[in-house]
Every structure is written in C-alpha cells, then in structure tokens.
C-alpha cells in the first residue's frame, strides 16, 4: 500500500518512520524541503501529486487553515486523490473545519477521518499514541492496520468531527490539570514546604494523575524544556473556547485557564513546556 505523509515536525517524523518500518511504501510532501533532511522518504512536488500517488494520506500539521489549504487549496490533495482513497488528518483542528474538509472530499469520492492524537512526542516515538477517530466506521476499519503502527489505543468516537471534539475535551482536562498541579506546587513552595515531597505524597492518593507525574516532575525540577510546546496548547484553547461558544456551553474553568495561557504567551514562554504555567503564578 502506498502511504503519503504531510507534516514532518516533531510528531509527524516518528509517525512517518513507524509506517515505513512496518513495510509501507511511504512518500511525503513538505512545505519546507529542509524538514526532509535525514529522512529516507521520497518527496512529491505538491500535495496533489502526493495524493495522486497514494492510497492513504496522513496529515499532521498545526492549524485549521494549514490543513484546509493542504487538503483543498490550489495544489491541494483534493486535486490528486482518486475516489476510494482516504485522508487521515491527525492534526488538532476545529471540528467544523474537519467536517467541512470531509464534505468537500466526499464530493470527489475521497473519504476522510479526523484522527487527532494524544501522548506527545514521546508517545509518537514509542508508537503509543491515543488516537481518537471521527468518520465512517468501515473507512476506519480499512486504515486501522496503519493506525495500529502509530498508537496503542484507537477509539472510533463517532461521525466526522467527533475525533476533534474528543481531542478538544482531552485538551480541556489535561491543561486544567497542569494548572491545578502548578497552583498546588506554588502553594506548597509559598508555604515553605518541599514541592518534590508534596508531589511524591500525592502520587499515592486520589489526586494522582499522569499530569502530576510528568508535568509535576518538570515543575519540581524546574525543567521547562518542552515536551509539547505551550504555544500549541494556547492554540488549542482558542479552538476549545470557540467550540464552547458555538455550542452555547459555559466553560468557566477552561476560560480561566485560557487566560493563564495568554499570560504565559505574553511572558514569552510559548516555546517552553506547558509546565511553565507555574512560572505565570510566580510573576510578581
């Protein structure tokens, strides 16, 4: 099977390599050719050309606008992909944009799954990502062997856009948990108590969580080098808050956390890990 991959950043790179290691014929397109250095994957000239050469195309890029332009733009996938082929978008974008792209592709007989992931760079490298898929169940069954190369847990959440809704829910819970861990660490430090000991004590109880484990440790060690860059969570919070607005659903905690992320960006920590929310609380 011929598999296309677009978006060879920190997440996309290991994902493309897992597909190649599994024996698939992987080819790529990159907006910036320098991202292809050190990758033994043949490039195509445009997304359309890549689409024409492949049975399944993966995208893993940053913004709704970028996914839309790669899929539907002048040299976009839509101009090359044949009926019966599948686009799997692993990016985190707005649910309504995912639905819009899926509808446009469907008119050409091309299927699309929104399949955003959780698990970060380490999850991409270890092929242990959680994958939340939206779209047609039969299409998902067809590409499932490919997704199994990338992640451990693939859940079909519902129709087109449902994967992106699940990802938005994931981001709400995860970043709010990082903020809660940061506030706890800050309170401990301000009370003259050892943060590391507090984290250790909490790990055995009801407040235990993966966030407290991983991000909490970064806070204790004051190691703010990114896992996932905070600017990406900031971007995602824009999507979440817009989705809540469209649904007319109040999300008071998410809104408050969103303001802490705005402050983080304003202080210039967008390329640090989101654990840097602790530093926002320390601003005098």
């Amino acid at each position: 099977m011929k598999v296309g991959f677009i978006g060879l950043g920190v997440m996309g790179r290991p994902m493309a390599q897992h597909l190649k290691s599994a024996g698939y014929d992987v080819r790529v397109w990159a907006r910036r050719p320098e991202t292809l250095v050190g990758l033994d994957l043949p490039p195509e000239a445009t997304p359309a050309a890549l689409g024409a050469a492949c049975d399944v195309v993966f995208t893993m890029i940053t913004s709704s606008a970028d996914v839309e332009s790669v899929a539907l733009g002048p040299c976009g996938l839509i101009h090359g992909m044949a009926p019966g082929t599948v686009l799997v978008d692993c990016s985190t974008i707005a649910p309504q944009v995912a639905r819009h792209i899926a509808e446009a592709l469907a008119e050409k007989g091309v299927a699309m799954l929104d399949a955003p992931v959780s698990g970060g760079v380490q999850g991409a490298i270890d092929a242990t990502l959680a994958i939340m898929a939206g779209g047609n169940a039969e299409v998902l069954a067809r590409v499932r062997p490919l997704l199994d190369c990338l992640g451990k847990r693939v859940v079909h959440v519902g129709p087109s856009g449902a994967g992106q809704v699940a990802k938005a829910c994931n981001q709400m819970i995860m970043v709010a948990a990082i903020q809660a861990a940061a506030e706890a660490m800050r309170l401990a430090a301000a009370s003259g108590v050892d943060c590391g000991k507090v984290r250790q004590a909490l790990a055995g109880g009801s407040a235990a969580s993966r966030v407290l484990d991983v991000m909490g440790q970064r806070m204790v060690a004051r190691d703010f080098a990114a896992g996932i860059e905070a600017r990406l969570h900031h971007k995602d919070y824009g999507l979440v808050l817009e989705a809540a607005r469209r649904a007319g659903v109040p999300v008071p905690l998410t809104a408050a956390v969103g303001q802490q992320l705005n402050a983080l960006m304003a202080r210039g920590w967008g390329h640090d890990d989101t654990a840097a929310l602790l530093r926002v609380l320390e601003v005098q």
Partner: protein
Amino acid sequence: MKIGFIGLGIMGRPMALNLLKGGHEVRVWARRAESMQPLLAAGAQGALSPADAAKERELVISMVADAPDVAEVMRGVASAAVSGLVAVDMSTIAPAAARSIGRELADAGIDFLDAPVSGGEVGAIAGTLSIMAGGSAAAFARAEPAFACMGKNIVHVGDSGAGQVAKAANQIVTGMGVLAVAEAFAFASKNGVDRSKVREALLGGFAYSKILENHGQRMLDRNFKPGFKSWMHEKDLNIVMQTAHELGLCLPGSAATAQMFNAMVGSGHGEEDSIAVLKLLEGLSGQGGEAE
C-alpha cells in the same frame, strides 16, 4: 453635507433620521428594502446599492451587524471610486478587522474612520450616543459635523482601529458591570435583604454607576426587554477574548464574564437584555426569581 448611510436597523434608522434633522442631504441603503421606507418618508433619497449610496457623497456611514458585512458594503463603496470620500463604520467589529478594512479603502484613495458607538437605541434616538473614533485627524474633522447630529460625547481616540479598541474596552466595563450588579443583588437577596434598598444605599457611594442606576432598576423591575441583547454583548465580548488570545493578554474577569454570556445564549436568553444574566445567577444559586 452629502452623506450616504448604509444599514437601517434598530441603531442605524434613528441615526440616519438625526442626520436628516440636522439638515444633511442623506442617501440611504439597506439590505431589506422595507427598512428604507421610514427614511424615504422623512425625505432621504434611496440608493440601489452600497456603491450607489456612496455616489457624489462627501461622507458615507455604515451601521451593520458584523465584520464580514462591513467588509462587503465597504467593497461596494470603494467600487464607486469617489475621490476625497471619507468612509465611516459605526458598527462594533474587531480592531484588527477595522484596520484591515481601513488599509483596503486607503488603497482605493478613501479615508476610513472606525467610529463605534455606545448608548444603545435610546441614545441613538435622542442623538446622545458616545462616539469613539479611530483614524486620521483630517478624516475625523470632516466627519465631525455628522457625528454632532448623532452623539454628544465624541472622542477621537487615535489611529485606525483605536475606536474599536475603545469600544471593546467599553464592553469589558459594561459586561462586568452588569454582572457585578446582578451578583450584588443575588447576594443581597440570598442574605434576606431587600435588593432595592441595597441599590438605593449604594447609589450615594463609590459603587455608584450608570449601570447600577439604570440596569439595576430594570433588574428590580424584572424588565428583561432589550435594550441591548445578550447575544450582541456575547459577540462583543468574543471580540475582546479573541483579541486577548491573539495579543497574549490575561483578562481573567472578562473571560469569566464572557462565559456567563455564553451560557445565556446557550440557555435561550440571547434575545433578552444583557441584564437577564441575573436570572442565570439566581438559577445557579437556587434562588427562585421568576420561573422562566
């Protein structure tokens, strides 16, 4: 002055009427032809399109719903290619959108002002709106005689977009102000204290505000007729929050307030006045209020 006026809704209609009363020659256009009738009856000329409304005019004013509408009518105005024209948008849109429309019009040789208003329908009818303008001083001077017919407190805030920044700031203060008064009333009632007496007591002190006085009275009367509709306040607070997101600006109070307005729209209070936030608060705290 020869003025084109585009958009004849709740706000635009009385504003255009006040321009006529001020002795200006006004040509009007509205998407729905029937909206033009009251103006034609009062002596305005009717235009066939936004471009037609700008023909042989010194000034053209738009008062429409949202940024895409402003961009669309201003494209029409630009296509009329009237040299020396000043275009004024008095709608509430994002500062970034206003700046972008201003740049496009500048390319067509048209001076642009963003000049949103505060004061609601009452202020529009009475000609007592607050007008906050952004753009060049020369354009502001040209538009001032028209502003004087529609408003009282007329301020040239700064460069292009500055008027919309001031309006967004206005919506921060009024949004939180309405919520603050509603919370104070809920607090009083839950404590078994007469909220009308609390209002009366507060009016003499540092908590005095126009919102405590006017919106507070309407809360006491449980008169939720708009006024200023909740969904419009929600839209304006969304401009605030989007801008804060783009700039990296921490606005915790506005964010919390925006969520209350989000909840109002979601729970069917969007067409009511923004003071209906009181009902939401009462519901959250299990206070009867009125069953609505």
